[in-house]
């Protein structure tokens, strides 16, 4: 149950980060997560892919992942080594795609102001807490059991293979 506790350094982004910013349209002929990962968040700033090399957790404002339904956005983040996205809120399709691909996506109210860029944090899914290096603790709503099972199986396809879902 490796995902029950996630630890890592934070890359902080703003509100309304759209999927064109997460992976620009010109890379959409790629499907390999490692290749897509080389361009993760490039639409936001060309320096982002190199910044992501030692960041594992993205902290975002409202409406993360809005816009196009491209699942490439989730694959790019996974390919760049992102383990979790913590946001004030998520756009609907991105959230479903994240779950279906085994990327931990959690709505954490107040996360934007509580966490600094580059700070280390620990996410405890079981205890529904986020602890920051500066000593703050934030809570979040538990992830529904069915969704957590899909995430922990590594996504919808893996969980289908394991017979976890109908």
């Amino acid at each position, binding site marked *: 149950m490796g995902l029950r506790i996630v630890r890592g350094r934070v890359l902080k982004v703003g509100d309304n980060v759209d999927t064109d910013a997460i992976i620009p349209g010109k890379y959409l*002929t790629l499907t390999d997560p490692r290749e897509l990962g080389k361009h993760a968040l490039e639409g936001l700033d060309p320096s982002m892919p190199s910044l992501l090399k030692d960041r594992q957790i993205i902290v975002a404002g409202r409406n993360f992942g809005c816009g*196009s339904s491209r699942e490439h956005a989730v694959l790019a983040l996974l390919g760049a080594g992102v383990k979790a996205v913590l946001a004030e809120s998520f756009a609907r*399709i991105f959230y*479903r795609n994240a779950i279906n691909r085994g990327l931990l996506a959690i709505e954490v109210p107040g996360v934007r102001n509580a966490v600094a860029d580059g700070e280390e944090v620990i996410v405890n899914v079981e205890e529904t807490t986020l602890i920051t290096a500066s000593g703050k603790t934030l809570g979040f709503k538990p992830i529904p059991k069915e969704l957590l099972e899909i995430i922990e199986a590594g996504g919808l396809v893996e969980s289908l293979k394991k017979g976890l879902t109908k």
Partner: protein
Amino acid sequence: MHSLTAKILAKASGKEKVEVGETVIAKVDKVVIHDVTGPITLEVIEELKYQIREPEKLYVFLDHYSPSPSVPASNIHRKFRSFFSNYPQTKFFDIGEGICHQVMVEGNVLPGEVVVGADSHTTTYGALAAFSTGVGSTEAAYAILTGKLWFKVPEPLYVKLDGELPRYVCGKDVILRILGIIGQEGANYKSLEFLGSGLKSLSMSDRLTIANMSVEGGAKNAVFPLDDTLISYLEGFGQHIELGKLAYLRPPDGVNPDLVIDLSRLDPMVAKPHSPANVSPVGDVEGLRIDAAFIGSCTNGRYEDLLVAAEILKGRRVSRSVRLIITPASKKILNKMLETGIAKIFLDAGAVITPPSCGACFGGHLGVVGDEEVIISSSNRNFVGRMGSPKAKIYLASPATVAASAIEGRITDPRNYLR
């Protein structure tokens, strides 16, 4: 009182009724994939080694790279053609046939159906009183393989439309106005449900544009009721509606609207960089210089969109400093452009006509913008980098506003061209 969305989802899940927030497993009538999101769907299908049980419910489009601008895109097309040669019942639309969302509403979607597509603008078909929403590639594969999908019944956001649209004010201006009010996540997880006497003045083309861009406010879906306008539209595609069976989709009574828009007082609207919800009346940005203008996309590439643009461009020329690109949304529309002569109006005005494609709208090809360029576009998104260079600026507007602006070389109120 249940929303039209709740009523459609109840039928699709075999229930008397369903409540907001309830999770249902609904039968999916049709699934749409295309050459950008579809490759991942095919990988999932191949990995699971399942057979596609009902290939006739699957609609496959080569529309984003139409025709292919690169070797990787050509290889995607090769794979699609080869994969689906094993499924002759699948509805396969090769390059040039049209943008998926336009072709789907040309007689392929019926009121009351549940349709999912691996594309966010699948919300478009709500104009046909259907439940339709965008999903990811993996979920599309799931729907293709199982014929069903889970949905949380969305909370409705009722939008009442009063009055009548003035000339050269379009469906695009209605949805931009709504986005300006509710914001970029104002409808997140919700269903936009349209009602009111103002619907009468909205053509199907206007409604399709509105439903299409509802996703820019985060909406799960949008839905228009089954009224006479829709019935005669469907008859145009040889589909005769049995009202008895579909009476539940008729316009609702006694609903308290969350939002009221008076169409008769609406101005042409413009969404400024870099959000479709960053909206002003055209007057606020009038005079701003542009380098390029685009009319097309699943949002505004319909015949009516092109017709209003042609009306404005007839006998005039596009500014020397501007390139105007016209992309009809389907082969049917391109044919009609040729038949009615509006293609010639565009060419005489100095515009470039491309084959049906998603190209320019998503920065793929057929009109990509360069550094520091300003484009006014009838498409749906003005995010940074959406149509090409991240240094470009995109203004979204109606086809009428785009046409008038292309003539002037500056953002222009189309009502100046009323003849």
